[in-house]
């Protein structure tokens, strides 16, 4: 028989075998939905083990296998943007975040029909609100944990000088000035990119301002916005209570300046609680404490969420939604808190973890819970992702004295109006 096998038959047969082995598993999986693909967030050494446990537990419970890829936040977001632009169906489930969700409303499947009202009511309202398309009411993702900032301050230095942590903007200037000197600074703030926009957002809301007015037109250049940006700039350039190169700082520098002992006060995310307590990452273990975020007219600041989303082009939506529900379920959220001290997005679990905490951790969690309950996020309107890139430049210009806060914000507002108009925000 082999002698009679022609070259044509051999090539044709080989091609058939290759094609069959490539496509057969897809049809088999489609039929029973026994495997889904997920693009999940990672960071540090603990996340891979966390996701391994979550996916294994999910498989034991449902029989559905989760094949996943892990990426850190920034490359993950870039990859999701690329896949979204290509209308890809490569992944069924994505890790996502409140900051980016506005651009993905058309790419992520609305989850309203998969979660009943009582289940949705368990999540913090602020986290559901800002993962929802304001035009259609479609929930684009479900929050897995909520992030907000509190004040982390050097209790030992404050006690030595008889100071209390600042509660208002004026107190922040006063306390920071008293702590600045001898190569140390009373405060650190980030001044570049997204971290700068987050800080400006907090100050804008605290001054009583808003990003957009009731017609969704940019209003961050109001008197309140100018006051906020002026205060932000003055911390660095006028009062000089921060490192002079703060305009080049991102989150890493913001955290490391405090953990190295160079500065005595900062506003940082929940992850800082664990890293500041770890001698391998902190030189100030046991010397710090937490306090609420400062306030001006209001005490509002950012409350954002890491979330899970369903690809609208997935062919295994039911299995994928089960996985999403599992990752945002009570057990997963408790594990998320135990491993990373990530604040739960479910109010029921949040109450549990706050009640079970002791000492400094209990105080910190209570402060975080209050911040989240009062928290906000910038609007998820069409074109707002472009507004963010405009804002980075405007804020940095003001912080580095290239433009006055008034000029920087007015220019940014004009550019933002153009961007949002082109994106159809006012159609």
């Amino acid at each position, binding site marked *: 028989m082999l002698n009679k096998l022609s070259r044509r038959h051999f090539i044709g047969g080989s091609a058939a075998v290759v094609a069959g082995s490539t496509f057969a598993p897809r049809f088999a999986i489609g039929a029973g939905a026994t495997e889904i693909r997920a693009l999940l967030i990672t960071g540090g050494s603990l996340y891979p083990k966390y996701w391994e446990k979550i996916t294994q537990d999910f498989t034991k419970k449902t029989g559905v296998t989760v094949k996943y890829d892990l990426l850190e936040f920034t490359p993950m977001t870039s990859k999701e943007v690329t896949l979204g*632009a290509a209308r890809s169906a490569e992944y069924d489930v994505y890790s996502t975040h409140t900051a980016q969700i506005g651009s993905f409303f058309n790419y992520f499947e609305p989850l309203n029909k998969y979660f009943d009202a009582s289940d949705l009511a368990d999540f913090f309202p602020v986290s559901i609100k800002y993962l929802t398309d304001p035009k259609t009411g479609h929930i684009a993702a479900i929050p897995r944990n909520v992030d907000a900032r509190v004040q982390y301050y050097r209790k030992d230095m404050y006690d030595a000088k008889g100071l209390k942590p600042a509660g208002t903007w004026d107190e922040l200037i006063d306390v920071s000035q008293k702590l600045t000197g001898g190569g140390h600074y009373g405060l650190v703030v980030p001044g*570049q990119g997204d971290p700068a926009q987050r800080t400006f957002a907090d100050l804008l809301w605290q001054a009583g301002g808003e990003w957009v007015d009731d017609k969704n037109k940019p209003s961050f250049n109001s008197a309140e916005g100018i006051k906020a940006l002026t205060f932000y700039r003055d911390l660095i350039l006028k009062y000089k209570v921060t490192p*002079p190169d703060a305009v080049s700082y991102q989150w890493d520098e913001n955290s490391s300046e405090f953990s190295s002992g160079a500065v005595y006060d900062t506003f940082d995310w929940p992850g800082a609680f664990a890293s500041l307590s770890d001698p391998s990452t902190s030189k100030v273990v046991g010397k710090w404490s937490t306090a609420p975020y400062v306030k001006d007219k209001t005490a509002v600041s950012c409350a954002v969420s890491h979330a899970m989303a369903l690809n609208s082009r997935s062919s295994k939506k039911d299995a994928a939604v089960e996985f999403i529900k599992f990752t945002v379920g009570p057990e997963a959220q408790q594990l998320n808190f135990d491993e990373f001290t990530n604040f739960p997005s479910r109010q029921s679990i949040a109450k549990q973890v706050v009640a079970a905490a002791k000492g400094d951790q209990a105080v910190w969690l209570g402060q975080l819970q209050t911040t989240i309950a009062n928290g906000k996020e910038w609007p998820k309107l069409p074109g707002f992702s472009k507004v963010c890139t405009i804002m980075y*430049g405007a804020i940095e210009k003001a912080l*580095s004295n290239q433009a006055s806060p008034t000029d920087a914000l007015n220019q940014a507002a004009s550019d933002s109006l153009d961007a949002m108009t082109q994106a159809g925000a006012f159609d």
Partner: protein
Amino acid sequence: MLAGPAIIVMVVILLYPLAYSFVMSFFRWDLGDSTPFIGVRNYSDALSGHQFQQSLRNQIIFSIISIAIEVCAGMGIAVLVNSKLHGLRLARTLLLIPPMIAPAVVGLNFRWLFNEQYGFLDAILRDLHLPIVPWLSDPNWALTSVIIADVWQNTPLMVLLFLAGLQSLPQEPLEAAAVDGASPWAAFWTIVLPLLRPIIMIALMLRIIDTFRTFDTVWLMTQGGPGGATNLVTVYAYLLAFQGIDFGHAAAVSYIALAISLVLLAILYGVPWLMAKRGAI
């Protein structure tokens, strides 16, 4: 037929993405359901936008200054290394190191080197009781800092290119010049430089192309800040695509940058060709 697979690979990897992104530049392309055709709107918005104008201005300053320093310093070091001084073999080996380091690593290292609190440079200035330099936080110094990083990484490449050229020069003209009593500087200026012109043209061409592609180093050092002071065209295009989620506009910006670099290359090669044709050289 034998070249078929190679042609297919070239089309798939090179031509198809180029064509696709060029077509994309005439559409409003975000993550929405529709991608409407908007003609040249992306191009007109880019050219009239002050952010693009700032990025183009930064790009031109960055390219001119970086290339000028790299070519001049590269030539000077190549002449030095080409001599018979002691220890030059080691110097030639060390010159290979900067180009071998990934631009992203260079960016990260220079970000820390230029840090005002912990950086090595400001630490020396502090020890010498000199005022520290706001390398990354002042808009003027920030552009200088990214130029320094670029020069550090790419000058050795110029050295190697010019060194290869110097070592391939015929010795007779130089010997004749020496016999005629010409100084080393006169010999360099009137004999060596003209003979090296093809190499210099290649070096300029490579660096023009490279500076218009520079992204990693700048992104890691400053992310285009502060306030767009180090926003090069590539950084601006990246921000538009991956943070502004406006792929059409980003594609248009990229093609405008490509057109400008092609014009520069056309001038670089076209002017000497025209002059040669008219018998001027």
